[in-house]
């Protein structure tokens, strides 16, 4: 009887472990989707910045309509809620494929401040995108706002 009791305990423990593993794989699936979404968002930022940057550097001829479109998109991207992008358990300490440092989950005040700075810089870009000089003047602050987050919340990687 004592033997059976132990077997039962063992089975319960095994089932528990399996459930925990299932739950774990479920969350990590969500986390991977969230990381994908983060990267897609960053990719759109880079794409639109690239349009403006190429004009600012003189690699591409300035086109006010194209610049305005890219600048509007950047501003819209900065205004998007990212609330679901950052679930618990999706930091660089938790999983592969992301460089988001755990400190991003504990420094909410810093995140809000930097997000507001990005909003201000991209709004200024949207207001200035009508002229080449405007784009050239506005792109520095946008880069600084991007960098302010990457400085603190992104793991170095080669």
């Amino acid at each position, binding site marked *: 009887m004592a033997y059976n009791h132990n077997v039962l305990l063992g089975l319960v423990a095994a089932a528990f472990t399996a459930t925990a593993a299932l739950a774990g794989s479920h969350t990590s699936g969500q986390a991977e989707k969230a990381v994908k979404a983060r990267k897609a968002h960053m990719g759109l930022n880079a794409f639109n*910045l*690239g349009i403006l940057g190429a004009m600012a550097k003189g690699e591409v001829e300035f086109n006010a309509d194209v610049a305005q479109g890219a600048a509007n998109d950047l501003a819209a991207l900065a205004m998007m809620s990212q609330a679901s992008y950052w679930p618990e358990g999706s930091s660089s300490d938790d999983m592969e494929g992301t*460089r988001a440092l755990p400190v991003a989950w504990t420094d909410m005040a810093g995140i809000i401040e930097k997000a507001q700075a990005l909003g201000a810089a991209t709004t200024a870009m949207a207001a200035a995108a009508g002229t080449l000089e405007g784009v050239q003047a506005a*792109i*520095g602050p946008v880069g*600084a706002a991007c960098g*302010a987050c*990457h400085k603190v919340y992104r793991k*170095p*990687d080669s």
Partner: protein
Amino acid sequence: MVKALFRWAAALALVGTAVFWWVTRPVMLDAGALAGLTPDLAAGEQVFYAGGCAACHAAPDASGDARLTLSGGQAFPSPFGTFRAPNISSDPDHGIGGWSALDLANAMKNGVSPEGQHYFPAFPYTSYAKAQLSDIVSLHAFLATLPASTEPSKPHEVGFPFNIRRSLGGWKRLFLGDAWVVAGDLTAQETRGRYLAEALGHCGECHTPRNVLGGLQFSQWLGGAPDPSGKGRVPNITPGKLLWSEADIAEYLKSGFTPEFDTAGGHMVAVVENTAHLTPEDRAAIAAYVKRVMPVQ
């Protein structure tokens, strides 16, 4: 017999201590080393940005003009312990406002404090050793124009045996020199870039891997290294890995944008905040130098 042995042991210990004391003694500049050099404030400001003083000595969360108050406090984790940048503001008591230009030159070129104590090489004197004395004199004058802070310097958290500062004298004999890493025929632009990158900019301090004693592995110069924080890597920026054009590198040092319009991250953001203040010619010179470095795969 025992007595004789003891005497021998005592004598040997004495000789050993004397040799250790001699080998590890602080090396300092002659009192007249700076004779005839006059400071140039504008040049000093450029040395300040090229040398990246604020990147480490500004307060941990300082941004904008607050970065000119060099109150210290940033932590630098390493395999040897955590180092904390001291207050080097112009305050005479808590900062270095009381230092002479010679004191600054001894600190930067020899890693020695005005009291004759060795600094830990977290302070990159292994690079600044190659700085020109005229630039240090100008930097000294510029630092005096920056705000004072009474923030006390925080102690390093370094355990035994690395906390024996005297032994750094021996470390310096192994790893402190003033030879250029990239030698050979360089153009005037590459030579300027080498001075900015190897001496003032101290790029190699993070981008070059270190041996177990913390000395730079010059055969892997700028070939990338584990980030000292233990998280991630500092990238390989030699032509073996970094395929950016010179214009791309110069742009990165100005705006922080990569050619793909990603941005600098981590400590490199603080570096770009400094290089953004350099002249376009100096950024181009650094780029030309970086393309000239021996490729590391």
